[in-house]
């Protein structure tokens, strides 16, 4: 707590230096002054809140110029783009980041870190020289705004026209939830089973038994490895260009360049075309030597350009299936009789070992290996169309992708970004970053303002290694990227582009200093979007009223817990406590307990909570007055809906207490509960989550 306060006041003091820095950058000559010969292309993007129904139900969404996605920004290499972002929101700031574009640091659009915040009613004009061509996108970098609709496509034509297709179509994929994304974040933090239940991906003892995977299930529980999770959120709809269906016009025989952009906040998609393998000609905006891919996995924030030839007759499906199999959205090429694409096989929810094996076999393929039915990204096939320079020497860093799925806390190297130092790189220096994914999820890692090359130790021609701005790192694997810090001094973010991961802390600042190591006076901001969340649950049964409520910020939690008997003469126990999260096993706890049950007393207490194998939580506390307690808690997921909470406690003065409660999941907020406790007897009732 003391440390947090100290950091906060230091950061506040720094704001003055930051403002001075921003002021200096804002008054420096902009692209149009530096490149007076260039054509200036202007856009105006107004962000506002309005009622839309992307998944049929009317909900509040965020729009750009009245719709979502926003307009396609069409530019040509060599232009100066001048884009004014107007914040039409009543009470929230906003921002726009130009994803994949090489822009001066102050135009990168990350609020506080690189660019001044655009407050309600304010606007800011971004100006930059367009130094590249290809398919890119833009999105808000503030809170959950990207999930609520603040995104759009950028299409940049090359300086000299190269005609690979008769015309091009932007297909921008996204995921939509009718819930307020802040509630989604809260549900993920609290550890709700609801999303996996809704998607049919929950894991249970009975399910594992029926799938013949009980042994693997128990091994996993023993090792404290959470169930494999291909996606965290249950979405109400998957969209193409903001709609649930799309027609791609084209005359028979015509070749269409489909510019695929994954603007999903938390979804990977598999692309399948009924017309046959996808002809990939560009990835992340960069031209690649054309290659065919039967089924394409596209990670959040990645873009691919694929060529599709319109068949002589019929409507042919271009299907985008969420990686977790929870839904899909399709575009139809041509018109007439329908030809459906083959969807990917459903994931095996208990097949974690098989999935890891499949990833290992693809990252490091055996000779002659065929494309798998559920492939990972096709990076191994990708070669840059034109050779690029390769640095002769580099400095190597390792960034570990870490997380605690149970607490829903994601990070680099296990550090809270607010407590982690920026990675310092000198201008001109070449850095190789090993991204080591120690988690059971895919993470799309995006580095701002630069292209990096994907490093493969066995690559015979590094000059044509693929250049990307976002790389998928599959579970339990390593990707190595290399970049040269030649896009200007300043703070550039590297983060997971799963929005809910980024928000909990999977983000770091890379500060590019001068070649001599000189840096601006203000501390690098971390762009941690973590805010404070609160939740709780209360069970009311014929025997007792029990529950808890908590407020969480970073690694700190404040708890209120209560337990009251319904019968006359039953005692109660109430606790107010503070818990500090140390790691996925250990938490420290201190507080004050009011206890009128047999042997109980009022007084301060302190102790630890430790997670044992099989996700059994061990508690040890000592209370003033001589009460020392030992407790064990285990939640058994019996079926997708039914779970059993088992609790045992022994106190030196209060002696043994046991309880067993069955919970039957009805909805996100409600369960039926029935159980027995040694203090309050048997009872049945409801459990409400709030």
């Amino acid at each position, binding site marked *: 707590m003391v440390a947090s306060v100290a950091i906060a006041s230091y950061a506040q003091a720094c704001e003055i230096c930051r403002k001075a820095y921003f002021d200096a950058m804002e008054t420096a000559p902009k692209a149009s002054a530096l490149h007076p010969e260039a054509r200036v292309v202007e856009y105006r993007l107004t962000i506002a809140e309005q009622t839309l129904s992307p998944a049929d139900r009317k909900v509040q969404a965020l729009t750009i110029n009245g719709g979502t996605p926003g307009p396609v920004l069409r530019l040509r290499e060599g232009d100066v783009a001048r884009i004014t972002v107007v914040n039409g929101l009543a009470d929230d700031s906003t921002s726009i980041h130009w994803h994949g574009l090489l822009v001066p640091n102050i135009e990168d659009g990350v609020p506080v870190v690189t660019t001044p915040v655009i407050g309600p009613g304010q606007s800011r004009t971004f100006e930059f020289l367009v130094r590249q061509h290809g398919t890119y996108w833009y999105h808000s970098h503030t809170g959950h705004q990207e999930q609520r609709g603040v995104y759009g496509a950028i299409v940049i034509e090359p300086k000299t026209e190269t005609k690979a297709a008769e015309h091009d179509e932007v297909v921008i994929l996204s995921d939509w939830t009718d819930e307020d994304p802040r509630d989604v974040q809260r549900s993920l933090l609290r550890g709700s089973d609801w999303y996996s239940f809704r998607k049919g991906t929950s894991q249970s003892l009975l399910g594992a038994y029926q799938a013949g995977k009980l*042994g693997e299930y128990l091994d*996993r529980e023993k090792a404290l490895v959470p169930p494999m999770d291909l996606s965290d959120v249950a979405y109400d709809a998957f969209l193409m260009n903001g709609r649930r269906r799309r027609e791609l016009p084209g005359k028979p025989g015509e070749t269409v360049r489909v510019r695929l952009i994954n603007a999903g906040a938390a979804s990977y998609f598999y692309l399948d075309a009924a017309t046959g393998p996808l002809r990939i000609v560009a990835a992340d905006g960069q031209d690649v030597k054309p290659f065919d891919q039967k089924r394409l996995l596209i990670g959040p924030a990645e873009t691919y350009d694929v060529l599709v030839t319109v068949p002589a007759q019929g409507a042919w499906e271009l299907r985008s299936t969420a990686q977790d199999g929870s839904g899909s959205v399709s575009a139809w090429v041509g018109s007439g009789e329908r030809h459906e694409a083959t969807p990917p096989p459903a994931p095996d929810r208990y097949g974690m070992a098989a999935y890891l094996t499949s990833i290992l076999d693809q990252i*490091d393929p055996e000779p002659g290996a065929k494309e798998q039915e559920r492939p990972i990204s096709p990076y191994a096939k990708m070669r840059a169309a034109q050779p690029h320079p390769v640095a002769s020497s580099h400095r190597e860093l390792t960034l570990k992708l870490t997380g605690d799925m149970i607490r829903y806390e994601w990070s680099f190297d296990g550090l809270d970004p607010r407590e982690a130092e920026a990675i310092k790189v000198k201008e001109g220096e070449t850095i190789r970053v090993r991204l*080591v*994914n120690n988690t059971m999820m895919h993470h799309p890692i995006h580095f701002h303002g630069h292209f990096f090359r994907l490093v493969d130790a066995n690559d015979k021609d590094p000059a044509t290694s693929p250049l990307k701005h976002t790389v998928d790192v599959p579970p339990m694997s390593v990707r190595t990227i290399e970049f040269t810090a030649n896009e200007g001094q300043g703070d550039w973010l590297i983060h997971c582009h799963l929005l809910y991961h980024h928000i909990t802390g999977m983000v770091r600042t890379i500060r590019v200093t001068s070649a001599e190591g000189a840096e601006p006076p203000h501390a690098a901001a971390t762009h941690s979007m973590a805010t404070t969340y609160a939740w709780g649950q209360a069970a009311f049964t014929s025997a007792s009223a029990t529950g808890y409520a908590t407020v969480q910020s970073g690694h700190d939690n404040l708890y209120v817990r209560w337990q009251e008997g319904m019968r006359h003469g039953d005692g109660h126990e109430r606790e107010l406590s503070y818990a500090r999260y140390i790691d996925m096993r250990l938490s420290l706890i201190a507080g004050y307990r009011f206890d009128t049950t047999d042997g109980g007393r009022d007084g301060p207490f302190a102790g630890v909570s430790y997670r044992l194998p099989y996700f059994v939580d061990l508690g040890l506390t000592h209370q003033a007055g001589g009460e020392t307690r030992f407790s064990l808690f285990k939640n058994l997921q019996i079926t997708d809906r039914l779970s059993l909470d088992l609790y045992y406690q022994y106190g030196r003065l209060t002696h043994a207490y046991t309880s067993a409660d069955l919970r039957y999941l009805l909805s996100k907020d409600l369960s039926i509960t029935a159980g027995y406790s040694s203090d309050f007897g048997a009872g049945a009732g409801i459990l409400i989550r709030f």
Partner: protein
Amino acid sequence: MKNTMLVILLAALASITAVAVESAAKPYPLDKCIVSDEKLGVEGKPVVFVHEGQEIKLCCQDCRKDFDANPAKYLAKLPKAGNAPKSDEPAKPKGMAMKSCCMADAKDGGHDHAAMVAKGDDKAKEAKQTDGHDHAAAKPGAEAAKPHDHEHADAAKTEPAKDAPAKPYPLKTCIVSDNDLDSMGEQASFVYQGQTIKVCCKPCVAKFEKNPAKYLKKLEGK
């Protein structure tokens, strides 16, 4: 009823024929499973059958799948006439000191090799290995033991240690995936040609087996 009697008669006839054929076959000369090299009887009653006139004994039914997939590979382990093998020498000339079976079935129907790797008591084992006293760790039987399989483990430990102590594993990361060893809970460890190997998870064991030389390069100069 008639039909039932016929079936029983035919079955009886078939088994008599089988026994007769088996008894005419060349006797099995080893005291260990031809697939896993595990001492027969440790996993329960051995599986006995005749393959092209040669009696074969396996430690368990799981090994039958491996044998059927490539009989020639395993038949090569049989000594040539008159050369009885020494019982304390593994029939297998080199390779994984962890080949075993009869544990959890892997998805592909083959053996779940990872299930055989010692875990659980890994820290104790590592300590022993670093001071060079855990000779049993380099023995096939010891590596095959599940931590809770006391009978099995003890049997292995009582075997006289002939091999040199295994070299300790020098990395903190999985030899296959390069991930942190503890990133998936308990790590798996085994001995390959006198070198202790650690991997982050079971699928990495199978991956290692396919091309050990490739991954062993990571240990060069360590």
